[in-house]
């Protein structure tokens, strides 16, 4: 079961059980829904952006432990960050969950999701919230899918 612990690390189980920033922002400047058609998971992300900085970010929805924890960790990582850093961070995160790369220092706690790289069918769970944020920033109206 040790390899399963690599995926389901304590931090992930904790964020799954007690997701941070798990709420609705009443008047977000940006908002989008993401859906993983594979498992039917749905999440909504809300952002408050002021002067190019993410003042507040929150999410809601039902998902597996990986997608919930990833969304929760993402909100922690993005809060207070300039919007123009998001793409770069997502790219680095995507690399970590899909390739055997070394985890870059700047990723912080997000790197606990590195175990996902051994579970290719779960990559979509880990990236769902990020896709939704990207859609929110592009102000796409349609629900984004991971496929």
């Amino acid at each position: 079961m040790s390899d399963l612990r690599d995926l389901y690390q304590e931090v992930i189980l904790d964020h799954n059980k007690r997701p941070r920033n798990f709420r609705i922002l009443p008047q977000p400047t940006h908002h989008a829904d993401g859906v993983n058609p594979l498992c039917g998971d749905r999440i909504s992300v809300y952002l408050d952006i002021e002067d190019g900085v993410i003042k507040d970010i929150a999410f809601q929805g039902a998902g597996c432990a990986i997608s919930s924890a990833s969304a929760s960790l993402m909100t922690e990582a993005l809060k207070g960050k300039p919007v123009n850093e998001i793409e770069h961070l997502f790219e680095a995160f995507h690399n970590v969950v899909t390739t055997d790369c070394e985890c870059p220092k700047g990723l912080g706690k997000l790197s606990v999701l590195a175990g996902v790289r051994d579970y290719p069918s779960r990559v979509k769970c880990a990236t769902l919230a990020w896709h939704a944020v990207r859609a929110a920033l592009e102000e796409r109206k349609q629900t984004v899918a991971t496929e």
Partner: protein
Amino acid sequence: MNDMSTLHHVSPLTHSLSTLGGELGRGGLDLARIRADFPILRQRVHDKPLIYLDNAASVQKPKAVIDAISDCYSHYYANIHRGVHLLSERSTAAYEGAREKVRAFLNAASVQEIIFTRSTTESINLVASSFGGSTVKAGDEIVITGMEHHSNIVPWQLLCERTGATLKVIPFTDAGELILEEYERLLDSGRVKLVALVHLSNALGTINPAKWMIDLAHARGIPVLVDGAQSVPHLAVDVRELDCEFYAFSGHKLYGPSGVGVLYGKQALLEAMPPYQGGGDMIRLVTFEKTEYADLPNKFEAGTPNIAGVIGLGAALDWLNAIGLDAVAAYEHELLDYATAQLQEIPGLAIMGTARDKAALAAFTIQGIHPHDIGTILDREGVAIRAGHHCAQPVMQRYGVPATARASFAVYNTRDEVDALIKALWKVKELFE
């Protein structure tokens, strides 16, 4: 062509097979022998013996089927229905021989009533397009059940969009049983042109009272299509006894290859229906002014079909008939009872679908643990299940869950495998504690 060595699965009850938990005796199936027919089951995944419990999605193939396909390509493959040469004659005979096997399997009156398609999905689309397109008008209604697979929902929605007809849905209880008073009420509108119902629900395991529902529809002159994708591997089906107008199923859930499906239709209806696709093989005479269509069943089989696949399906039916569907049903029923009793002992586990008449699968959720996570953890224990919405999103919505985990059984599964499933589920609980 068919390997006769597969014809002795039913053995005397006197054997005993300790490694298989004394499976022999229950229904008299020789499980060791059945399992030996499946090369793919002899492997380890993630360093554990493979325990394949995703049979409702697609079932594994016995050697007899693999060999029949290989035999076709190795020895006598050619295009059918058009060759003057020996190989084409042999291929045609094998292909049409498989049609006769399907006819006998369903107890249809004539081989002209057996159309080969790509899948259940294509069979249903054929009916929606050809029968629906020519008979359904604005203001008409199509009745389906609330527990349909998307493939028995979306073709009707498309038809409704095209024609201005309306889709009506029979609701079901928390246990997963159709509310039959509601069904009768829907039938009484006087506008229903077709009932399309799933025989055995892939999301719940419910076996719907098809015969009874067909009789009710017929009493009002309404034709019925039955989606038999899940039923044919688990219960004996007799289309003349059911008296349904259409019956659809897929080869790949019936121990046959993927890419082959069947549509049974009553001859008079099929004859009256316009073709679904145009092309070669479905014509009698083509001029640029007018085309005469071929007779049944060719009228509905445009183009070169999946020849080896159809022959493989025929081999699958031989294999299954040698065991006997009644024996399969009895054995799987006991396996399901055995699994259900143990699943119910896991705290927080809720089984979705507890109909009195049920078969072959257990769909469930565990409180606080997403089915997708259950599926991943089980996989690492060698246990393959399905986690998701099972292409039945309305069923998930009915219960207010995004997804379920589903263990689905085939005749080759054993009690030991059920025990391994349960053990792995306890590991899931442990990991998430």
